[in-house]
Each structure stands twice: as structure tokens, then as C-alpha cells.
């Protein structure tokens, strides 16, 4: 782990700062929703704290400022939060964000390989985790010490290909994978616990497949951070993060239509008020 020693270890979290950032990112996404209707706002709000933690609390940087670790957004439809963070980090520009989903722009509803800060094209579910396994193997073979972080949706875990990758990650000893399952219990056609009751339990499934797995409160940055830093290690880690789809805006929370919809002006104003209140709470 010599590469790790020379890297900037950002393995720390300031919950108050995380809260302030997450408000800023949710506001940014909300503002974007007023210009373009094509975005998955509920899906991004569901994993806001998770993706914020990965970028600001977990991924380490090399001395030149580039990331030593890698993040792949397996649930590609949640990428508005990634875009907002990449803009904040200066990796995406204001102009990129302004041109989101417009002719001449390079950012679309799903992350595209080749765009700054985006390591893989996702959007079709069930692809991310296998690519994560390949990247984790490459890091291990070249002894870089690099960790691979990813966020999966709970719906995505219904894909058979995800389970192929779950099996391979542990069988191949990929202890440098840290995955978060954005467990919001909702997918396009309703509540997962209604449509797929045997989908649960989750932690036990990953444990049975040779992963270390824990449940954590998915909007609590400190709890998520501790789930990762207090792991035993030696195995890939799956943090089953209990989240709320559309978190922060009452009329969006757990209402499937907000998987796709953008708020109108009145709804927008209400959302702003509620998000501000969420931070003060």
C-alpha cells in the first residue's frame, strides 16, 4: 500500500459540512429541473448523501490532485447528483451543466463514458458491478492500492448479471470494492417490498455470497462513513443504505411519479422551502 501512504487520505467526514453540501446539491438539481424536464430527481435525492460521502469523505487523492480511488455510478439514472458534485469540484463546468440535455451539450440523463469525471457509461441496469470487478482486479494486479466505489439501485439487484458480479467479486477476492445499495424500496412500478417480497432480506444475501454487508441509515453521512471505516475487511463490502426516494421534499418522498417528473413553479418553491428546513432540522 505504498501508493496509499503518499496519497492524501480524505477518510474523514464533517457531518455539518456534509449537510450543507447536500442541500447545495439538492438545490442545484432542483434548479436544473426548472430548465429541463428530463431528469430523475427522486433517484438523485435518494443517494445524495451516499455520493457526497464517496467524493468528499472516502475517495483519496494523489499528490497531483487526481483521485487515487475510482467511483462508478452503477445506477446511472441517479447521476444528477454526480453531475452536481463534479461541477462543484470543477471537473464539469457551468457551461456543461447549462447545456445538459440540449443540442451541443455533452451531458445526458445517463452518465456517458468520455465525459469528465465519468468512468463508465451506465444507464442500462446490471452492468456496473461487473465493470467494478474488472477495475478492482486491474488495481490489484498493478498494486496501485486503488479502491473502487459504486452505487447500485435496489431495482438493479433484480438483474441476474448483478448476481454474477456479486459472486465474482467475492470469489476473486476483490476486497477493494466498496458498494452502496441505494435501498429506497421503490422502483418504477411501485414498492419493491410489494412486488418482490422475497427480495428481502438483503444483507443476508450478500453475506451468503461472501461479502461483508451491513445496513446503515442512508441519509446519515456519519452512519454511512462508519459503515465503511469500521468494516472488518478482507472481503468486498456492501453497505445496504436505507434511503427515501425523493428525500427532502415531502410530496416527492416515496411517490413513484417523481422517478421521472420535474416540479412546476409552485412545486419548486415548496421544495426549496422544505430543503432549507431539512438542513436546519
Amino acid at each position, binding site marked *: 500500500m505504498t501508493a496509499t501512504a503518499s496519497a492524501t487520505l480524505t477518510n474523514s467526514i464533517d457531518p455539518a459540512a456534509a449537510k450543507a453540501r447536500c442541500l447545495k446539491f439538492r438545490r442545484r438539481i432542483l434548479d436544473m429541473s426548472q430548465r429541463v424536464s428530463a431528469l430523475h430527481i427522486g433517484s438523485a435525492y435518494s443517494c445524495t448523501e451516499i455520493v457526497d460521502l464517496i467524493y468528499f469523505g472516502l475517495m483519496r487523492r494523489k499528490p497531483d490532485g487526481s483521485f487515487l480511488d475510482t467511483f462508478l455510478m452503477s445506477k446511472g439514472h441517479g447521476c444528477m447528483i454526480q453531475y452536481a458534485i463534479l461541477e462543484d469540484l470543477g471537473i464539469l463546468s457551468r457551461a456543461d451543466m447549462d447545456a445538459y440535455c440540449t443540442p451541443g451539450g455533452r451531458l445526458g440523463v445517463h452518465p456517458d*463514458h*468520455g465525459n469528465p469525471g465519468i*468512468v*463508465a*457509461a451506465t444507464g*442500462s441496469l*446490471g*452492468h456496473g*458491478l*461487473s*465493470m*467494478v*470487478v*474488472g*477495475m*478492482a*482486479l*486491474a*488495481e*490489484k*494486479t*498493478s498494486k496501485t492500492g486503488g479502491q473502487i466505489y459504486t452505487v447500485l439501485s435496489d431495482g438493479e439487484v433484480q438483474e*441476474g*448479471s448483478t448476481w*454474477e*458480479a456479486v*459472486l*465474482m467479486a467475492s470469489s*476473486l477476492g476483490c476486497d477493494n470494492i466498496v458498494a452502496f445499495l441505494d435501498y429506497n424500496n421503490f422502483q418504477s412500478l411501485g414498492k419493491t417490498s410489494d412486488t418482490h417480497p422475497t427480495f428481502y432480506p438483503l444483507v443476508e444475501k450478500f453475506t451468503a455470497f461472501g461479502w461483508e454487508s451491513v445496513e446503515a441509515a442512508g441519509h446519515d453521512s456519519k452512519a454511512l462513513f462508519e459503515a465503511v471505516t469500521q468494516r472488518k475487511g478482507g472481503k468486498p463490502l456492501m453497505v445496504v443504505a436505507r434511503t427515501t426516494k425523493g428525500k427532502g421534499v415531502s410530496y416527492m418522498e416515496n411517490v413513484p411519479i417523481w422517478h421521472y417528473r420535474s416540479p412546476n413553479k409552485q412545486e419548486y418553491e415548496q421544495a426549496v422551502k422544505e430543503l432549507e428546513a431539512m438542513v436546519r432540522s
Partner: protein
Amino acid sequence: MRNTFSEALYQAATRNPKVYIVVADISPAGSMSKFSTEYPERFINVGVAEQSMIGICAGLALKGNRPFAYTIATFSLYRPFEMVRDDLCYQNLPVTVVGMGAGVIYSTLGGTHHTQEDIAIAGALANMQILAPCDPLECTDATAWCAEKSQGPTYLRIGKAGEPVLTKDAAEPFQFGKIRYLRRGTDVCILSYGVIMKKAAELADRLQAEGKSVSLVSVHTMKPLDRQGIAEALKRHKKVVVIEEHVPQGGLAPQTKQIAWDVKASCALHTFTLQDAFIHNYGSHDDLLAAHGIATDRIHAAIA
């Protein structure tokens, strides 16, 4: 052919630490044991999990490596098709998908193990390149090209075992993207690719014995197809014959006809392909090809 693939890949892996092979519970014999012994961290067996085979290859390539995915053609291209499309082609990664035993070589295993429409399917994908070497020597060249030169995804369609050497005295060397004259003549030109080239060579032998001047051409690069090379072959010969182990749609036969129209070719053009049918026949490879209408006698009679 799979043994020469194995040896060529082992050599490539020795020269370049970025060469990996990811297999799905099927491994080429021969030198692959040397590969897995000497470079265990670059030999990955996913088991019967072809979707993850392709995804893992994509992940390795995203980190700058040059992986090969290897299993029987139908399982390397069809089963994980969307991974091939999205992970490899959409992201334009230098991953080689090896389709071993392509066509109807697995004649006794039934239609589940046949790959009779792979050129059409792989060829429809943007960024995908297709190589289909005709003998063990050409397979060595094609494998080395994939390991060292390719800048994007390639479908490498290879045979199984026991294919005869046909290119030892070839008139031209292997060159990616160019048709390759194995023999040069003026009367008849036979265009073919892959394992079925042995039928084309038999036909060429027979025509030459009858005093005809025959060109025998390996169209090893099926994508990007050497349209100019084929156009010239159509112009320079009185008769052009296409023989391919592939359904009538999307392969060399229809593309040659399209080129012939585009360049207003005046030669006679005969095409012989597999039928657009699943044929339940459990004899030898030759028996199954004959059931599809591909037999040297029949082709010889048809083009007379």
C-alpha cells in the same frame, strides 16, 4: 485453431503485461496452461457467467488493459449481447470477444451451440471490428493484431481444432482490413473466410485441375470490409464465388452483391451460404454443411 490462438495469446501476454484473458468455464487448451501458470493474476475464470465475463473485461479495459473474453461463440456474443454492445462497443474499448467454434462446427451439439448469424449481429454494432481467420497461421496473426494493434472492440471468430494450414504459401501476408489473396488467378475468384475456407480451397484445387486460373481470397476482416479490394476482385475476374458459413442475411454474400451493384460489376456472381433455417442434423461438420447446401461437388456443379 484454438491451440494457435492460445500460443499467440501467451506470446502476447509475455510481451505485454496488459494482456488478460477472461474465460467462462471453457478454456483453450495447449499454451493456456502456461498462461494460467505464469500469469495467474491475468487468467480469470468467471465460470458459467458470461455477462460478468464481458463486464469484467470492460472494467479491465477501462483501467488501460487489453483483455480477451473467451468461450464458445454463442456464449461469448449472444448470451451477453447487451454487455458487448454497451460496455464494449458504446464505450469503444479494446476488448477482444473470442467466438470459439463459430458457425456450425459443433455439428453434433445441436442448434444451441451454433453461431450461424454472428457476423450479422456483431457487424450491426458500431465500433465493432470482426476478424475471421481461415487457418491456424492466420489465427496467429489475427490474435496478435487484437492483442497489440486494435484500438476498439473486436469479435474474433475462430474454429475449433484440426483445421488444415491453408496460408503457408499465401500470395500475400495478413493485413487487417484488407482482403488477402492466398492464390492469384484471372478466371474465377473465390471469396471466403473462416474455417469453411477449406471447402473453398478444395473447389479451387478442382477448378485449377481443370485448367482454370483461380484466385482464392481470405476475407478475414469482415468489418471493416475491404470494399475496394472486393470491387477490384469483381472487376478483374469473369466469375466470383462467395462461400460462407453464415445465414444469407448480413454476411459476405449480401455485402458482395451490394458492392457489385455499386460498382456496376459485369462478372458472374454466385453465392453459397447456410440456409435461413435451424437444421436438426447430428452428423459431422461436413454433413451439416451439406444439409445446408454447402458441398464442394454441389458448388462445382452450380457454378459450371
